[in-house]
């Protein structure tokens, strides 16, 4: 896979500025996404990594207008997709974007398909909704082509089958076929392989790679799995407690993480490629997003804080540590020290050995 350089002269395909999403709950208002800025360029493969509650899925649902309001509430300075501000569109205009210019792939394809219709009809329907001139017959032909493209064996037979007749991996393939049916410019895949076994996951990743080559759509892969991020993405956003804490090209990020949380994730990961002396876990729990910590939201769990008051009182903004590598840490220039401590405990340097 070739890495697409983050060419700043290009126009971003989607640009998100100061996105905030909150949910009203019984116990208070959850600030699920807190002032997030990011962009994705045409043809880019963007990995978004974070643990549950980091706001990675909510971010995507927010820009797609899929956050139920109430209890949710979405606000942003702008969410610009090809010059259009998505947040100013009404539900009908938004529906034209969803499934057409931007499509989504979810974790569990069983609930994403309607159990009473055949897979084939649902894909054809998705095509015909966005292209009224397409005949039923043409839509069927195209659906079969799509199924065959994503590696569904005997697609003519499979076309007429119901979701329950598909295995989990096959359903996910069909989901991908539906997602690319209208040649989207952006595909958002939210934990597309989490529910699948590792050998099936490998098949699906293969399909995702293939369709990106075929369609050249920009892809956002949301996952908690650093392995998937490392293997698939060009560029990565690391999210923690509703904020982007670090963003860099995938090689930069793994070779020289500039946020202690990213390094913490790497150090707590058991791995197949080397034998570790021990895992270095991140102490404590992710914070409450009803009352997030003041200053840096990672400071209660951070080794780099060393009791310094900046971490507690000042909100770190994303700063450019090196070309295209941004981090939201006050003391990112001390990361090398911490990395050495990690290496001593874990037994290996958890950072990637790639030259950057």
């Amino acid at each position, binding site marked *: 896979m070739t890495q697409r350089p983050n060419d700043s002269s290009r126009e971003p395909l989607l640009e998100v500025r100061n996105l905030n999403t909150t949910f009203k709950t019984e116990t*208070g208002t959850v600030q699920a996404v807190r002032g997030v800025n990011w962009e994705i360029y045409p043809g880019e493969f963007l990995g978004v990594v974070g643990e549950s509650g980091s706001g990675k*899925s909510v971010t995507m649902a927010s820009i797609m207008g*899929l956050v139920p309001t109430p209890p949710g509430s979405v606000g942003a300075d702008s969410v610009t997709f090809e010059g259009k501000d998505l947040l100013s569109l009404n539900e009908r205009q938004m529906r034209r974007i969803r499934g057409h210019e931007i499509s989504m792939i979810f974790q569990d394809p069983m609930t994403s398909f309607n159990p009473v219709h055949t897979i084939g009809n649902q894909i054809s329907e998705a095509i015909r909704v966005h292209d009224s001139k397409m005949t039923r017959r043409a839509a069927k032909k195209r659906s079969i082509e799509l199924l065959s493209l994503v590696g569904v064996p005997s697609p003519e037979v499979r076309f007429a089958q119901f979701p329950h007749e598909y295995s989990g991996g096959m359903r996910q393939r069909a989901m991908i076929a539906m997602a690319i049916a209208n040649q989207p410019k952006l595909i958002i895949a939210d934990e597309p392989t989490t529910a699948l076994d590792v050998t099936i996951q490998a098949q699906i990743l293969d399909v995702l790679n293939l369709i990106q080559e075929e369609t050249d759509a920009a892809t956002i892969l949301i996952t908690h799995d650093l392995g998937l991020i490392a293997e698939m993405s060009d560029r990565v956003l690391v999210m923690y407690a509703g904020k982007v804490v670090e963003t860099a090209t995938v090689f930069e990020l793994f070779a020289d993480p500039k946020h202690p949380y990213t390094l913490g994730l790497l150090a707590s990961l058991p791995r197949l490629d080397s034998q570790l002396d021990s895992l270095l876990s991140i102490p404590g*729990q992710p914070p409450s*997003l009803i009352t997030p910590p003041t200053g840096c939201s990672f400071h209660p769990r951070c080794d780099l804080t060393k009791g310094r008051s900046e971490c507690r009182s000042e909100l770190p903004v994303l700063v450019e540590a090196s070309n295209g590598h941004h981090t939201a840490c006050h003391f990112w220039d001390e990361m090398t020290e911490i990395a050495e401590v990690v290496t001593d405990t874990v037994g290996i340097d958890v950072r990637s050995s790639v030259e950057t």
Partner: protein
Amino acid sequence: MNDERTEQILDEEAQALIGAGEAPDPRGDMKRAKAKIQSPGRIAWRRFLRHRLALGGMVFVGILFLVAIFAEFLAPYDPNVVNTSAFRTPPSSEHWLGTDSAGRDVLSRLIFGARVSLTVGVAAALSALGLGTLLGLLAGVVGGWVDSFIMRAVDVFLSFPSLMLILLLVAVLGPSIGTIVVVIALFEWPTAARIVRQMALSVKETDFVLSARAVGSSRWRIMRKHVAPAVLSPLTVVGTLLAAQAILLEAALSFLGLGVKQPQASWGGMLEEAKSLTILEQMPWMWIPPGLTIAVTVLAINFIGDGLRDAFDPRQQM
């Protein structure tokens, strides 16, 4: 369809956020740890209190109970004393809700009638619940032929045309509050048994029951400590439904003249007057008050049931 799924994902994520938020710091923020404990019961109660209709229903039924208990002090007249000078008089300052065909004060009869309805409602629902829970738990936990036997009995009871049989039984046994309670309970327990069995079966499959088996808990202990408490809270919802149903049945029986013996006042009995066309058309004060009271009472109890169901919703509880 995608939207639905997303909502669900968001919901889960939101729950995760809240869950993480409420989690106390394991390294011990002692003050917080000692703060109020959020038992599932307390959370349910708090949710219930936020359910306005349920709260309203609760207040109404509460007042009704007080009225029934203190009927002697509240009723302006003896409900059974016949005022020969005032047959079928419309509401006046003397008789706020008028008098009936026998010259008895409608308001006083309404107040005393609450006793019958509430007694029947509570007693029948409790007996049905008791019997149903016992048999339902037995069927669900023991399983095998016990289960088959109990569930077939349930099917048989549910397939009877119950009102007919109730009428027959009451006719044979003679009308009295006791008979009515027994007969209603006899036909209501299968509903409870069915729900309890279903609940018990699903609880039996949970990981916490598996864990309890793994530590060596006996079946009896599991039933007592894990299954019964899990079944109990949704059972209160069933209880409200059964109580409402029982009150309606009692009213129906009394209306048909098979309820409590005359001259004891009961709401259904008061409605009996409306069988006469003249009364129905020209003397609404005789039947509107009991009719309305029955309707509002049943509605109030159903609201309480709704509130309880929302409060115990397991999706919210997790």
